[in-house]
């Protein structure tokens, strides 16, 4: 579950905040597949649409993660569903997802979402992040 959407409207549209998301997979094989799918959507500039759809579908209990369900989710969210399917089938992001996950674990990240504001680790709650962002905007903690 991402905590970013509430902050996006409040800070990003006014140019005060830049959001960066790094997909990792610490919850097993389905996580790895989902992270690869998000990357494949990103190839077509549809990372945000796809990841929002992925969270929403899982939250609503509409999707069990599999190659097929991830491909179905891409329909209407990416420009070229066939290219998305080819990307996912190729597994070309598998190594990168594993490496990113290993690196994140090396940084002590063992739960998600893990969030950093200007490099400072902040609890991944909307309130904590909002406070940290406002502190930074006011000149630092």
């Amino acid at each position: 579950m991402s905590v970013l959407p509430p902050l996006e409207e409040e800070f990003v549209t006014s140019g005060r905040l830049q959001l960066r998301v790094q997909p990792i997979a610490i919850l097993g094989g389905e996580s790895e597949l989902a992270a690869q799918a998000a990357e494949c959507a990103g190839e077509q500039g549809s990372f945000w649409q796809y990841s929002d759809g992925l969270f929403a579908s899982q939250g609503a209990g509409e999707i069990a993660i599999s190659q097929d369900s991830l491909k179905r989710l891409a329909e209407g969210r990416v420009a070229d569903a066939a290219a998305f399917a080819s990307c996912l089938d190729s597994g070309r992001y598998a190594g990168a997802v594993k490496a990113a996950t290993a690196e994140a674990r090396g940084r002590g990240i063992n739960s998600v979402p893990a969030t950093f504001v200007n490099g400072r680790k902040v609890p991944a709650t909307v309130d904590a992040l909002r406070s940290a962002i406002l502190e930074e905007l006011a000149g630092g903690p």
Partner: protein
Amino acid sequence: MVGRRANKGKAHERRAGRGSQWRAYALAVGAAGAALAVLIALVEAGGDHGGGVGTPLPLADATADTPLRSHILGDAAAPVTLLEYSDYR
């Protein structure tokens, strides 16, 4: 005669040995060139860190076949950056 023939044989072996050494040297040079080409390609692929939407993060891209991308939303000049590591399951 026999001795000369034997010497010829040894000379042939030495030439053959030198040929093998040159082949090994050529293979080593070729392999080093290929490795350099791969390294250059990797550096170029990761050369736009910190730019706009979809630019790769430094993490992981040196060890992965296809680098991950840091997915960015918002103004690059924004005073605050929020990085989220997220699991999509």
